[in-house]
């Protein structure tokens, strides 16, 4: 069980696809104008990620190495098309606001990247976990981003007004510059935490070494 959490945590934080692996910026920036869209996009992408990871890892032995990439693309594109059709049919509004970014999940580097780097080499369950973790990482990032943008730029959260009428929102947050600036700050924040962690780790190791030394000396 511990292992499962570790795998998920890897996708959500340690190797967060957007903030650490720097993949999939385009949908992250484009559809994070409202939390609603963001959640929709994240679920769509997670669905594709998980299902294609599962399928790819289960047919990995069947697929000849040379034909790897085309097969992956077919698998992914199939799931993307399914998502596209289903959303169009049953959630037309969301489909409209996500627009071209649904078909673009095909080329989203997160999906293809995980298929290539993970699912083609690991068993079905691990691939499932990896897809889920990455999907959650994507979800987390895009939702945080969208929350910031929607709250600042529109004064709402999930469409609900937060501050009353006298608040004038900083509209730029939901415009393209706002997306870039906000994710830039998030990236910087992530780096900052990682740098601090590394420093702390170093300090701890140093201290441990020193205490070991003193222990030895005492002995």
């Amino acid at each position: 069980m511990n292992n499962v959490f570790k795998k998920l945590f890897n996708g959500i934080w340690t190797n967060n696809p957007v903030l650490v692996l720097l993949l999939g910026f385009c949908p992250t920036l484009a559809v994070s104008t409202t939390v609603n869209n963001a959640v929709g996009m994240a679920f769509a992408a997670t669905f594709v990620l998980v299902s294609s990871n599962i399928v790819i890892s289960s047919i990995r032995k069947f697929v000849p190495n040379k034909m790897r990439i085309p097969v992956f693309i077919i698998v992914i594109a199939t799931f993307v098309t399914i998502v596209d059709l289903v959303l169009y049919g049953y959630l037309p509004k969301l489909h409209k606001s996500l627009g071209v970014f649904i078909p673009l999940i095909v080329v989203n580097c997160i999906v293809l990247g995980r298929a290539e780097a993970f699912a083609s080499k690991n068993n079905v369950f691990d691939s499932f976990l990896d897809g889920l973790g990455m999907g959650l990482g994507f979800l987390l990032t895009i939702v945080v981003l969208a929350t910031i943008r929607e709250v600042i730029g529109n004064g709402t959260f999930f469409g609900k007004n937060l501050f009353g009428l006298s608040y004038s929102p900083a509209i730029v947050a939901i415009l393209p510059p706002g997306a870039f600036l906000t994710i830039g700050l998030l990236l910087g924040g992530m780096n900052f935490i990682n740098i601090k962690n590394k420093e702390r780790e170093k300090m701890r190791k140093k201290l441990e070494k020193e205490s070991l030394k003193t222990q030895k000396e005492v002995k």
Partner: protein
Amino acid sequence: MLKLLIIAIDSMLISNIVLMRFLGICPYIGVSKKQETAAGMGFAVIFVMVMATLISYLLQIYVLNPLKLEYLQTIVFIFVIAALVQIVEITMKKIAPTLFDALGIYLPLITTNCTILGVAILNIQKNYNLIETIVFSLSTGIGYFIAIYLFAGIREKLDWADVPEPFKGPAIGIITAGLMSLAFFGFTGLVKM
């Protein structure tokens, strides 16, 4: 004629593919450390974008639409693009080796670059005719070139700037992109689509 000019200016500056439409951000961040490589990437994108958009346009009009297979758009387009890049790579190597030396390394990167697929799909959504398709894809590609080339120029300069540690690299890059996007808002309304 006027419409073509409007399409060109709009897709180059006003609705710039990177700064306003959010397509191709990853290579924009990834291949912009040096201005020469940015230029190489830019040219490669222009080239592939025009070819890919054109071919997928023809496929849509003459194959998918008549057969009522519109729902296979995504899967067909991505295959066309992948195949196209392969073919371009091989023929360019044979016919124009110097060009290949310049652009060759960028071509594989482009297959998975969402600008190409994105523009191919947008082009269909916008219902452009053949000439408009060419103008649209060409000027969108040029818009990409402008954005990545200028951006790489700034980034080269930033190499020597005293940027705080956590913001070094992609973070400051993307913030700079934000400020460029802010600046490009000035082009709003220069032409109206």
